[in-house]
């Protein structure tokens, strides 16, 4: 299959699905559900195909910059052959889109994006299955759902800053409606809060993009074209030239940071998340926690750090401290909740703190070894959290469907009534807690390790947070599953459909904990390491004076260490 | 020749007339008076145009009479404006039985 077809259909298939769903005649709601599920499944299948090509083909897993450089930009629709200018099988395509401003239709995949793409495919398929209980305006729901999936996929595919921004913005609207129409009682408030927070955040991102495009107006040294939205070229410029001076990088970094921290979310931009989660219907909560938050993390790792490495270095301590604070704050806030869903929402904030911390723990002394641990950990945390949080929200939804309450104090003793549900929940909750052997542990250990080598204080605090996490998770398990409670003893256990939804996530939680290397890191961390390398070079080039106090010699890079 | 009266006199006169008109528009509340004030402003501009034409050197290729022609056009337009204005004022008068512009307030915000 040609790259053009593959990469385009990745985001176009769900979009077509949205159109098809709208064309289904009224009254055939079952058909709508089948069609939507079919299209989502096709999306997952395509993502898996892309992953297989990426892992299996040497042309595809070469560094992104090399692959991008091999491509001639073709103005379209001038070329008769769709693939003209492409190098087939390297998973990068680019076409002119708005030539007046040098904006391109530029898609590409590397280890970072392909992993998140597969996560998107998986979570959206499961969320689609979880939506079978929706009865209100089914066609509209599924159309918006598929539109959301299409735009999220597009975000992970885009390599043109402008295209990225377009997909990023398109995500907002379906999400707004999905919360505002199908949500709980306070849905309007939650939806508008989500919309405005994210809109404000995206303005920051747009300003940063425009600065990168226009600064300082003439061509930089080294043969790069000025006025470009090309992420790959800008990354190379940032890491290999001093084109963007330190002052401007500080600004760009802060703008990107604020924009993506809103999405992530991190303290102090997190307040929309608990509201949105509590009000959103269960499948949308799954998408929100499982994929949408990752868009923020992806923006950090793909744009904020690589495009402004020196700025990132200048701000690293502040950001790392923010990450640690988010971890602690999220955990403490989770502990104080009595609403099951709100608890899970705050745990998301806490977990996303690890992503921030892992990115910001920029100990660059003696090479970028420990820093690579941190960023790998951050990426792994995104995947692990994508799996566990989607599962947690689903499990909360299951209990809410049956008991019609999310009040932790009135729940209890569910283990007796629903043993299968209990067993699955234990695995997921422990995975989220970071029990060794489950997926969360791998991520946390990487991040904490990097944090220790960056700043002992922050490292200790981050490690201490693990205790808090264990605290609220175990306490929740105790309150929900253990003990005896006559009220709930007749609740039915999971249905077959629910098991089908939860099982893959449970299995992944275990597999990702036991086989992190062959399953994910093998193909993901080379890309991550390249990002780290670029950031390290860029900040070394632009930063004045000693980079960091030399504590010890750096370890070998993660990819090579194994 | 025109040296008897300097150009600036005409301009000062026009400025004074224009200011009178502007003050009238801003201060008067009677719609008819406002209409008259607008006419004064238009005519002040006419004085300017004719004076500039009489004292200035026309740019080559611009033709000999642009200022006067412009003034004539303005007079025509002003007439049309008065007709429309009176029509609208009458319409409002029929509704409110008043020509006071402050009385017309069906909308706000």
């Amino acid at each position: 299959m040609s790259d053009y077809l593959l990469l385009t259909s990745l985001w176009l298939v769900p979009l077509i699905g949205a159109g098809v769903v709208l064309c289904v005649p009224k009254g055939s709601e079952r058909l709508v559900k089948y069609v939507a599920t079919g299209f989502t499944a096709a999306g997952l299948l395509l993502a898996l195909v892309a992953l297989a090509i990426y892992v299996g083909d040497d042309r595809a897993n070469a560094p992104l910059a090399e692959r991008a450089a091999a491509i001639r930009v073709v103005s379209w629709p001038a070329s008769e052959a769709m693939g003209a200018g492409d190098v087939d099988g390297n998973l990068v395509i680019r076409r002119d889109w708005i030539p007046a401003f040098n904006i391109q239709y530029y898609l590409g995949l590397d280890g970072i994006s392909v992993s998140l793409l597969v996560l998107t495919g998986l979570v959206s398929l499961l969320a689609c299955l979880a939506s079978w209980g929706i009865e209100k305006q089914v066609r509209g729901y599924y159309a918006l759902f598929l539109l959301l999936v299409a735009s999220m996929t597009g975000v992970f595919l885009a390599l043109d800053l402008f295209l990225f921004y377009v997909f990023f913005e398109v995500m907002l609207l379906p999400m707004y409606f999905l919360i505002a129409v199908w949500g709980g009682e306070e849905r309007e408030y939650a939806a508008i809060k989500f919309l405005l927070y994210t809109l404000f955040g995206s303005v920051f991102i747009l300003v940063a993009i425009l600065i990168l495009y226009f600064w300082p107006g003439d061509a930089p040294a080294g043969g790069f074209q000025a006025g470009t939205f090309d992420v790959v070229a800008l990354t190379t410029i940032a890491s290999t030239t001093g084109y963007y001076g330190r002052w401007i990088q500080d600004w760009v970094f802060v703008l990107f940071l604020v924009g993506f921290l809103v999405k992530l979310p991190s303290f102090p931009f997190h307040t929309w998340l608990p509201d949105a989660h509590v009000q959103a219907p269960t499948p949308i909560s799954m998408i929100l926690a499982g994929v949408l938050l990752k868009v923020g993390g992806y923006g950090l790792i793909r744009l904020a750090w690589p495009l402004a490495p020196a700025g990132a270095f200048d701000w690293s301590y502040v950001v790392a401290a923010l990450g640690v604070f988010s971890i602690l704050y999220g955990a403490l806030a989770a502990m104080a909740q009595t609403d099951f869903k709100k608890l899970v929402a705050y745990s998301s904030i806490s977990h996303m703190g690890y992503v921030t911390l892992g990115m910001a723990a920029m100990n660059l002394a003696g090479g970028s070894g420990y820093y690579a641990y941190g960023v790998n950990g951050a990426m792994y945390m995104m995947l692990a959290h994508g799996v566990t949080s989607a599962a947690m929200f689903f499990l909360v939804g299951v209990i809410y469907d049956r008991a019609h309450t999310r009040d932790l104090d009135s729940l209890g003793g569910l283990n007796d009534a629903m043993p299968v549900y209990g067993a699955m929940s234990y695995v997921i909750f422990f995975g989220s807690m970071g029990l060794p052997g489950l997926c969360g542990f791998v991520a946390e250990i990487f991040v904490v390790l990097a944090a220790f080598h960056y700043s002992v204080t922050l490292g200790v605090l981050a490690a201490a947070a693990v205790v808090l996490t264990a605290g609220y998770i175990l306490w929740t398990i105790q309150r929900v599953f253990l003990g005896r409670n006559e009220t709930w003893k007749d609740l039915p256990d999971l249905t077959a459909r629910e098991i089908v939804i939860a099982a893959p996530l449970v299995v992944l939680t275990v597999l990702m904990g036991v086989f992190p290397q062959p399953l994910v890191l093998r193909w993901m961390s080379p890309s991550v390491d390249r990002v780290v390398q670029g950031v390290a070079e860029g900040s070394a080039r632009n930063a004045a004076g000693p980079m960091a106090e030399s504590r010890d010699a750096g370890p070998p890079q993660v990819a090579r260490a194994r | 020749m025109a040296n008897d009266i300097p150009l600036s006199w005409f301009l000062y006169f026009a400025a004074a007339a224009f200011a009178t008109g502007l003050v009238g528009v801003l201060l008067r509340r009677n719609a008819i008076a406002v209409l008259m004030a607008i006419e004064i402003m238009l005519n002040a501009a006419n004085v300017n145009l004719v004076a500039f034409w009489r004292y200035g050197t026309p740019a080559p290729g611009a033709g000999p009479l642009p200022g006067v022609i412009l003034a004539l056009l303005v007079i025509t337009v002003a007439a049309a404006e008065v007709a429309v204005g009176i029509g609208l004022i009458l319409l409002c008068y029929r509704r409110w039985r008043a020509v006071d512009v402050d009385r017309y307030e069906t909308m706000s915000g």
Partner: protein
Amino acid sequence: MPVNALPMDLRDFLRVAPAVLLSAWGLVVVAADLARYRRRDAESRRLAVGRLTLIGVGLALASAVALFGIDSLAQSDAPRLDRLLGESFASYFSRPDGLIFFGTLASGLPTDVLNVLFLTLLGLVVWTSTAYAFTDDLGEYFALLLWATVGMMLLAASEELATLFIALETMTICLYLASAFEKSKPRSAEAGLKYFIYGSVSSALFLYGLSFVYGLTGTTYFDAIGRVLGRGGHEGLAGNLVGGAALLLMLVGFGFKVAAVPFHMWAPDVYEGAPAPVSAWIATGSKVASFVVMLKVFLHALGPWSNPSNELMGPGWLGVVVVLAAATMTYGNLAALAQRNYKRMLAYSSIAHAGYILVGVAAASVSTAGPEAAGAVLYYLVVYAFANVGAFAVAAWLARDRDGDAIADLDGLARTSPALAVCIVVLMLSLIGVPPFAGFFGKLAIFMEALRQGPSGTRIVLAWLVALGLFNSVVSAFYYVRVLKAMYLREAPSVGGLQRAKSAIAVPIVVATVVVTACGIVPSPLMDLMRAIARPMLTATTLDATAVTDATPAAGATARPRPVAWTTPSRPE
């Protein structure tokens, strides 16, 4: 010395065929209404007169499209034009200056494109007007719409101040009357009178400023004014009292016409009071024409005064326009937040949009892309106009079924008319500026032109202006989303809700949606077209005008670059 160097050519009338056709058709409509349709019952009479008007608009549109075809052929394939039209006509149409009637009017591609735009919008507005009964004087009403459009077309084509003034007055006088046409509502009469007073005061201010420009330069032709001012000596605001007064007065005049803060007070009342189709025409056609001519006057004629000392707050109109733009978009958006009335909200939103467009006007004068930068403004205008025609068709719908125009009247529309509700969502999103709809690309193009400039003192200030504009678009989301909320999150009233929209309402909404979506997903063709026509539009030069500079060469004068008109610029790399 000859009275005028340019010969009058009767063939010039061919090139204003759309305007001529529309003027005559206005009379036809009035006569036909009086003679044939008056005795019919109200409903069928309205439809019949509307249909007759639409036929005229269609004829004019056809002539405009034909002219567009001829003019683009003259540019791209002259021999073919020779074969089609014969030698003499072909050479007439491929005359490089394209100015007609003694150089007072422009013709050629820019004019053709704008005429097509005006006539398409007019077609939609006329169609909307047949949606409901708001007046008995149908013939006069439609004739006024047609004649207002004649004013707009001539205004956008004018190359000379007297022509500009006449066209401007033609347009606005017709619109004053049309606003007062809703006989059953006192507020309509009030809107007409308010519009008249504010409009004619602004005309007087503009005319007074115009007289000074004439006095300073001795000419009324845009191009000649530009040449004279380009020689230096009249530094605008700081140069002398007269120049400064002229500049400020003209700015105030245009400020009123485009509803820029602080000259906006008429807009909300007029938009609310006038019948919905008239509001639509004031918000779109009149605004587009005013902005086009503002671009011409300020970039072409007064271009040398834009920023002579290369500092933003130095003498020149750039700084004033920047301040106006900032005030306009901020005030418009903040005031719109408080509105519960749909038409009033659209009025404030259109004030805010005027602010964004003023950013574009400022940007076009400093952008390193040259006159093409004004293409961003034109693109914005097109997109804005279509989105607003659609939005005001919704207002007509409300007026028809609810006899009101509160946003709350839209409650539950998503249930009763799901397809049109989706269209309205698209229109609102485009107005907010959410990708992938055209409004976003319009805003972006303007902002990017504002940032695309050489290193100078204006750079940082314009960057802040752009940042302000971006945050303003977020603020605007608040009130546009209110419309979406009403349609999707509220229940429709059990009785007296909106009925099914007939074609008069549905067609404008759907057409606007299609345009806004298509120009968003594939923005390049329209953007390129607009950039291509921006240069000839802003540099139209009379053939003998070189004599003006040659006759009086000022020592050390820096001649402004005089590109030949009619070149389609290739895309800048």
